């Protein structure tokens, strides 16, 4: 079967309509998980099938798509998803956050602030923030509908009692508009503050678990914490070794057999942009040189 045999952005229009309905419902009830009839996609579950379906349902031929995984445009799975939409939808693609109209992401929120003209689509493995406290779906649905989140607070409290701090570093639970506790997908908690008041529409797709949820623009999102143990976004105590940024999320890269390491921005577009603007970090070469 040739690529022409598939509909624009792979999914048939009926399926896209079904997904859009779920998205609209999710936008209407921010943070609430909406079941949808997830389709088998030509990439495996766990590779972002939920995000891909949400992206497919939102794409128009005029869109400019950016796909990142771990903040980078060139990680293998980001490359694969981007080329999937280039083939099946023929849309323009970009690596520049500011130029993109739709960004699909796994595990990061771009450092560059988003705008009202953008949609950010998250790939979600386990959409239920209460799942590891209560494995049964009918139970967790009931807890959400009754706003019964005591179990989650007990878990966070036990963390503090045991470790002196909340021992969750990514996938850090949030409360949306004072109502639903939501899983922000496995982004580092460093990114959590960017969820709140974001001008862009944020959509979350979980394919295997058949759930979609959403944060409409400018939604209030609060990371769960206690008055005497306030939320701490946390980050490596370093600056980027390539661009010198002190406020971006950093990856730790082992660079020699002796265990030497460097810290670099996980957001490759952000880092390149800074280097192009002349910022140079501890180990950085001037812009244009190979990273």
């Amino acid at each position: 079967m040739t690529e022409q045999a598939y509909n624009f952005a792979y999914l048939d229009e009926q399926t896209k309509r079904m997904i859009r309905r779920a998205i609209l419902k999710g936008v209407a009830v921010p943070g609430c998980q909406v079941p949808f009839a997830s389709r088998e996609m030509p990439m495996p579950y766990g590779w972002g099938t939920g995000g891909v379906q949400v992206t497919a349902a939102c794409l128009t031929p005029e869109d400019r798509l950016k796909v990142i995984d771990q903040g980078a445009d060139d990680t293998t799975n980001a490359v694969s998803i981007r080329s999937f939409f280039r083939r099946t939808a023929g849309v323009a693609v970009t690596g520049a956050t500011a130029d993109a109209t739709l960004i699909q992401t796994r595990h990061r929120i771009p450092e560059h602030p988003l705008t009202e003209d953008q949609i950010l689509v998250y790939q979600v493995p386990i959409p239920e923030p209460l799942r590891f406290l209560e494995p049964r779906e009918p139970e967790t649905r009931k807890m959400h509908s009754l706003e019964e989140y005591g179990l989650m607070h007990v878990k966070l409290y036990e963390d503090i009692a045991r470790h002196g701090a909340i021992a969750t570093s990514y996938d850090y639970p949030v409360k949306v508009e004072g109502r639903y506790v939501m899983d922000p997908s496995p982004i580092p908690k460093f990114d959590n503050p960017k969820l709140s008041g974001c001008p862009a529409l944020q959509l979350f797709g979980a394919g295997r678990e058949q759930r979609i949820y959403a944060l409409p623009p400018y939604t209030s999102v609060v990371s769960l914490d206690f008055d005497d143990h306030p939320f701490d976004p946390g980050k490596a105590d370093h600056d980027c070794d390539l661009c010198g940024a002190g406020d971006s999320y950093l990856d730790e890269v082992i660079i020699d057999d002796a265990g030497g390491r460097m810290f670099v921005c996980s957001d490759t577009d952000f880092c390149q942009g800074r280097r192009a603007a002349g910022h140079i970090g501890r180990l950085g070469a001037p812009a244009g040189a190979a990273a």
Partner: protein
Amino acid sequence: MYVAVKGGERAIENAHALLAEDRRGDTGVPELSVVQIREQLRLAVNRVMAEGSLFDPDLAALAIKQARGDLIEAVFLIRAYRTTLPRFGSSRPVDTGAMACSRRISATFKDAPGGQVLGPTFDYTHRLLDFRLAAEGQGLPKPATADPVAGPVPHITSFLNREGLIETDRPGDDLPPDLTREPMELPAARALRLQAITRGDEGFILSLAYSTQRGYGRTHAFVGELRIGTVAVEMDIPELGFAVEIGEVELTECETVNQFTGSKTEPPQFTRGYGLVFGQTERKAIAMSLVDRALRWKELGEDDTGAPAQDEEFVLMHADNVQATGFLEHIKLPHYVDFQAETELVRKLRAEGAARRQEAAE
């Protein structure tokens, strides 16, 4: 480094090319044709059709070839293809009583109308490697077989029904939900459960069924009947106003008869477990009927013993091997952002712990 800063795209292309080369293997050996797979690896084809939820032996054989014999990968290829097909409607319920049976056995009666028909089975073979198969081109023994038993062949359980010894299945006209078109909702009706189990992973369903035999949700089962054969698929055509036969499919159907001493709501009688799977797939069909029976504890007023096979959510949410393998294998994708966050957390907790110990020592 598998996450090169640049060049990911080229690496992927090269990996695909290498995969194609590996798939072909030694070019001095003739290439396997799809038809050969369809005809000579028929049980693999059947499994792929059953778990792929698509009855098409040619496509299943192609998927097996493309997947290099990895059947779960082949099931995935079929599923990904199937999901692009439009759904025209639903067929009438197939009449397995009218099945042209190539095999039909009962473990509960020595003989029954329609007879015991062994058909092509491994059951009584001695599992000795047959080295004649290694020397190809040997002639085949000519089997003495009768033609498939022309239907209708009555179901064995219907004989028990006459005495009221077995529960009566209440026929329903409800259109069963389609689990490939609607999200799974729990608790699930039996029709949805059966649908999930018939496309579930054979190994998983087998192990669950085995666990009920060993006492985890015990529902001692007899194979009332196991039949394999082809049935006609009929569909109502609204423009015509009557049903038209659109094809035939091979099915394996298993009905188990289970002990039941009665409960508060039901009299002592035999109860049923049901399995229906595409192709000759009897291990799966038998396992399915045991798991089906174990999951019916609630409607029959039995006790929940906490056995995995009685736990609908556990069974249905973990039976799908395409979902399972995807989520399992995705952990080999890059996770270094999350890992970095964890590393920072562990460092912080260690530093705080060390500081506390220091303080205590002073």
